[in-house]
């Protein structure tokens, strides 16, 4: 097994490093620390952040890849496996024949079989990889699920109390150091504990049961939907997170230069983004993706494996999404910079003979931070949804790559089927909904705290 780094792996880990650097910077500045404390004083923000971290953690675990040589031992039939895949190996291996409902013991559709006497019969075949420990006895399923739920609860409780103990130790140490001199209003830790407990409980519950059942059913080719949904997290987070990273420098540099230097620089940048804005985004993305697809199919030898090819396509999608989505933020930053550069403290800085770049760095950028942060978090959720739409249209990520968009795209046909197959769509929807909702609620709170004009 050889550790391999896909392009998107490198990017997501750099994003992680960037966030760590950002947090360290905030921690070193007393005013910023106070502001962010205010963000987390809201219970909603606390819950949202924990959920976002949970998603991000899964995406990170899914972003450490190893190359596996095709051999007899390699049962997963994949060339690249991530750490998440290793943890969920049983899900990859427990492939059924076709659709099965959540917790079902038999297939969802009937098959034609010949019985011993040679008569044709319509039967619902039993699934291959479920409930072997209770000998596939339908009457025992409820009882078994209940006991496993109990176990999950117990495990979550133990893990949680362990975490609370560790955290409590640090908190009390801090309080003891601070003495009683300055009373700081506490953060809603109890809410954080409860959220974390629920998350751990749900996670453990799914994990324990996934050994014996298809908790969220299986899809058309019998793959586990839970596994698909979990793998999709990485795609969603990548598209949401990395696209913002691609567009941010463009928006920042162009927006601020247009607003600060004015004149012909402003004209050029304005023409650039008005032109870009007047081309429908989907059209541009579709065209770019088609071009790339034809390049990829003519140069198949450039890519070592299907995973690498899918990854390349994802990376390209991220780039093209970044290229088309910077205009909004750029416009916003240009307008704000125009306004700020008229304010007297900027005049004062000019009277001190500061050069334009120092003025931008010290006087303009810090006063734009709230706008940037708000735009970033809002764009994140917008982009996660955009991926779903694009994959649905067929110009999104590679069809072999697990993503919520692909799941929804497949569900298009499943919904029309009789009886309906609802679990794929529902799982994709819920996983995406929770992520986008958390990001939006968090953005609301950040906006409220960082915007100097909001009423406190």
């Amino acid at each position: 097994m050889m550790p391999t780094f896909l392009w998107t792996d490198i990017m997501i880990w750099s994003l992680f490093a960037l966030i760590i650097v950002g947090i360290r910077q905030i921690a070193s500045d007393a005013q910023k620390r106070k502001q962010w404390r205010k963000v987390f004083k809201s219970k909603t923000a606390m819950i949202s952040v924990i959920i976002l971290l949970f998603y991000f953690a899964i995406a990170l675990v899914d972003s450490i890849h190893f190359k596996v040589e095709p051999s007899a031992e390699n049962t997963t039939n994949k060339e690249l496996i991530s750490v998440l895949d290793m943890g969920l190996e049983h899900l990859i291996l427990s492939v059924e024949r076709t659709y099965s409902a959540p917790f079902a013991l038999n297939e969802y559709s009937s098959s034609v079989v010949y019985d011993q006497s040679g008569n044709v019969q319509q039967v619902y075949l039993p699934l291959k990889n479920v409930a072997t420990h209770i000998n596939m006895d339908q009457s025992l399923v409820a009882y078994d699920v209940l006991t496993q739920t109990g176990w999950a609860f117990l495990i979550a409780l133990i893990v949680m109390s362990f975490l609370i103990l560790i955290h409590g130790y640090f908190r009390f140490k801090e309080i003891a150091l601070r003495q009683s001199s300055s009373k700081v209003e506490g953060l809603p830790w109890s809410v954080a504990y409860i959220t974390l407990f629920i998350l751990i409980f749900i996670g453990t519950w799914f994990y324990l049961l996934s050994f014996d059942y298809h908790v969220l059913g299986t899809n058309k080719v019998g793959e586990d939907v839970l596994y698909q949904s979990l793998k999709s997290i990485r795609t969603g987070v990548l598209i949401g997170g990395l696209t913002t990273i691609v567009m941010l420098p463009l928006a920042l540099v162009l927006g601020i230069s247009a607003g600060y230097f004015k004149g012909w620089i402003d004209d050029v940048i304005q023409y650039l983004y008005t032109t870009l804005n007047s081309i429908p985004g989907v059209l541009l993305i579709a065209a770019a993706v088609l071009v790339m697809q034809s390049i990829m199919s003519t140069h198949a030898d450039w890519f070592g494996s299907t995973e690498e090819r899918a990854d390349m396509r994802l990376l390209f999608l991220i780039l093209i999404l970044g290229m088309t989505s910077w205009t909004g933020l750029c416009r916003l930053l240009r307008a704000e910079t125009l306004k700020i550069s008229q304010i007297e403290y900027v005049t004062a800085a000019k009277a001190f003979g500061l050069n334009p770049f120092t003025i931008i760095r010290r006087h303009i950028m810090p006063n734009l931070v709230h706008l940037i942060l708000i735009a970033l978090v809002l764009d994140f959720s917008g982009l996660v949804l955009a991926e779903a739409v694009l994959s649905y249209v067929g110009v999104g990520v590679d069809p072999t790559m697990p993503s919520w968009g692909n799941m929804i795209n497949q569900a298009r046909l499943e919904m029309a089927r009789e009886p309906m197959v609802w679990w794929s769509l529902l799982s994709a929807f819920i996983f995406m909904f929770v992520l986008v909702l958390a990001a939006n609620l968090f953005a609301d709170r950040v906006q409220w705290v960082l915007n100097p004009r909001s009423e406190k």
Partner: protein
Amino acid sequence: MFESTVLSVQNLVLNIGENRLIDDISFEIKPAEIFALVGESGSGKSLTSLAIMRLLPEVITVDSGNIVLHQQNLFELPEYQMQKVRGKQVAMIFQEPMTSLNPVMKVGDQVAEVLKLHLGLRNSTARDKVVSLFEEVGIPQAEERYDWYPHQLSGGQKQRVMIAMALACEPELLIADEPTTALDVTIQAQVLELLKSIRDKRGLSILFITHDMGVVYEMADTVAVMKQGKIIEQAEKQKFFNEASHPYTQKLLQDAVPKQILKPQLDSTKLLELNDLKVHFPIKKGLFQRTVGMVKAVDGVSLIIEKGQTLALVGESGSGKSTIGQAILKLVNTTDGKVSYANPDSEAINLTDLSERQMKPLRKKIQVIFQDPFSALNPRMTVSEIIREGMVSLKVGSQNRQDQDNRIDELLNQVGLEVDFKHRYPHEFSGGQRQRIGIARALAVEPELIICDEPTSALDVTVRAQVLELLESLQKQYQLSYLFITHDLSIIPAIAHKVAVMQNGKVVEQGTVEQIMHNPQHKYTQKLLSSAPELIRKVMFA
């Protein structure tokens, strides 16, 4: 029944959370009376007016007290009746005519809307009524102006439209919240005159909210002084100005008119000379941004600033006085003319010829303080970062951090601030304190000339007096020269040695303070001086 009061406020108490904002105030306004509510910013005078209109923000609660308009307790009215009271019985005009009018609606329609809403007039009758109202408030060519948009009107005319709107439904009480603060002196005088004549004609009561004692002296019949949510003194106008008893009132009156001791004229050397300075801005139009004309912001100005002295540059908004300051700092490009800065070693340097790099050594000699203390300081930098910036950029004094810290402490002491303030952010300070930080920032690079761009016009009078005093003592200590840009005539004798009066980009008259103030030659100067409130003229020319 004969009514002797239009409005009575009885023991009003307003709270925000646990904090008391308005603390038990009572007053009565009689028919056709102008009742002036005076106080510095934050004294609660505007809150009182909002309470009368029942337009308080939700966080502020009425703790106790009543507001009675014609025996009708306003706090007991349901909201839909209160809506009839607003506009119909009580009308309001605000400080900022620019933001009180809807920019995308014709001004006439905005007034007509009120008439249609409250009086149910039809379109044509409403139009006639509006035109007659416009004529009443002195808008020329009223018929034509009906179809204009707010941006086509001047500030004074906008305020007249606001007054017309307020008068539209013939209210019994007009609340005027600092209606002239944003206007130039000549226009202020006209608007005040208008309000008075309307009062006389219509028998309207006016609650006049202001911080300006000069305006109070012109307008009021009765005066009440507010401080920290309390009315500390209330009296008839004559009695008030002659025998104010409360020490705070006395201080307000004293600071309202700065001391009028003329400065001795000193012989001094030239520091800066402007020679036929012109700053024109092109007006660009059309697809290809052709230059179709020029705005002559500064059109041939010659001035001399002497070492250790103050030149006051007086003029109304738009006269180009601030542009001169920016041209000296090379923040705008000059079209023509010379700005010569005296150089002890050789000939005077012409600033207009210098590149930004050549200008840099001179930047430490010329500094600037601004009008608005809230926008002059970067909200994301601490006080010490703000003051240090110039020292680092222009390499003034030791570049050692410790030495700079000591110097910052010293500067803060000098401008009358505490040393522990240096780690705080600007939003934690009051307007006056921020202005002091601005002064410390300018002083940090040891300048010879400071351009003061209306440094006191956003400050309360007591704070204004302190800031002027500080500027004067710094001038004595460091032989500083000031170019003092202002529209406020009353402070000129207190600060300036020489005065130049500007109108439409040109200096119409210049000379010593005595010449200009007591023997003005140019018609515009005379008009400016006669527009100053009587209270100030009384002292100035005593």
